[in-house]
């Protein structure tokens, strides 16, 4: 299959990331603006790889407290428990809500981990100028952009439980410090995925045509 034809960048063209208009940009890529919507034009996201790494490393660091620290404290007259993300899932499973347990497990554990590892792999492969499996890597990138937001699920659950049960005097539910770290991981990985430029996956193929 001969797929590798011309990219816009190889012809000195640049498509606007807001309105999609393709325009010619000269050697000075700095100040060029889209003639239709006046957005600043970049052939590739400026400093995308560096910023993506920075955000990703920050997310890795916070990933530990997010999973090890308490995300929710539940107390009533007869019982008191502290839950991390994983123990919350286990508790749901044991209480018979297996479907919900699976949903929470995927949204809170599988998705963030998958996102961190995939982004790491994408960044390394881009920096090594790998030419292998570009279509699959692009598809993976599309997938993490799509599913990343669903990790916010646990944050919303904690918010609703804490607010409702707090108003009711017999029991208490409190958000723990793990929730802060977890929220930060979700936000950081979302920013990291936005800073990654999937076009970099295809650039190394350019020379082979």
């Amino acid at each position, binding site marked *: 299959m001969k*797929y590798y*034809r*011309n*990219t*816009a*960048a190889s*012809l000195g063209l640049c*498509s606007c990331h807001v*309105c*999609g*208009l*393709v*325009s*010619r*940009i000269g050697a000075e890529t700095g100040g060029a603006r889209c*003639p*239709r919507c*006046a*957005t600043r034009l970049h052939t590739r996201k400026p400093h995308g790889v560096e910023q993506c790494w920075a955000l990703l490393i920050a997310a890795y660091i916070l990933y530990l407290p997010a999973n090890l620290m308490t995300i929710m404290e539940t107390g*009533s007259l007869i019982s008191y428990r502290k839950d991390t993300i994983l123990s919350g899932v286990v508790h*749901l499973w044991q*209480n018979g*809500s297996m479907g*919900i347990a699976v*949903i929470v497990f995927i*949204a809170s554990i599988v998705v963030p981990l998958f996102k961190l590892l995939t982004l790491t792999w994408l960044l390394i492969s881009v920096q090594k100028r790998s030419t292998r499996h570009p*279509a699959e890597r*692009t*598809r993976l*990138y*599309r997938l993490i*952009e799509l599913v990343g937001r*669903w990790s*916010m*699920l646990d*944050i*919303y*659950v904690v*918010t*609703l*439980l*804490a*607010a*409702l049960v707090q*108003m*009711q*005097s*017999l029991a208490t539910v*409190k*958000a723990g410090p793990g*929730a*802060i770290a977890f*929220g*930060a991981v979700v936000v950081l990985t*979302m920013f990291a995925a936005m800073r990654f430029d*999937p*076009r970099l*996956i*295809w*650039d190394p193929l350019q020379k082979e045509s």
Partner: protein
Amino acid sequence: MVWMTLSFHHHNITKRRRRRERSCDNLAMHTGEGRAMEDSSISFIACHECDLLLREIALEPGRAAACPRCGATLYRHSTDSINRTLALAAAAALLFLIANIYPIFGIESQGNDAATNLYGAVRSLWDQKMHFISTLVFITAIVVPSLELSLLIYLLLPLTAGHIPAGLAPLMRFLQGIKPWGMVEVFMLGILVALVKLTDDFRIIPGVALWSYGGVTFLLAAVAATFNPRDVWTCLEVRVREGKSP
């Protein structure tokens, strides 16, 4: 900078949204030394995910064009996109307002009951000194969705009457920037999970907002499927070519 004239070059390689065939020979451009650039009857787009330069083709309604190299959806032809999106956004905005005013659900146990709407939950979390989480929920579930809906209405209403609203280009850019942070559908799932967790210890009283959120989730998905930013840019372009500033 050179303007690429947008006009539709006719080729019969339209694709169904689901059954996408890759026919790269028709879509992909065979450039020599960029000669085709000067031909004003052809317009070009670059794939936003792999930067392949492609020739635009006309699509039949309801179909989408896909990049032959990486498979990204390039653009769609949605019938009457501006009018339909406006209608859906107006309906979503109304329901979203209701969803934010009335309680989502209440709980009752041994005579004590409590109910809250989303803003109440955010306030309560703020009072528990969880400022970061509270802000995060406030932005993603209240601020961004309401901004998104009101901006859509502000931008699309004048366009249906043939006017270009002030600040169209920067607002479209802003809209695109905040879009990933609107998470009503995730919040909807959060409500359901919270309900399941509470049914063990409490009696649940469903509130008006519970149903409204369901409706909002559905309508926002419809807005996302109908809205076609390309149509907005085409409106702006016609105006620019007529010599009026954007």
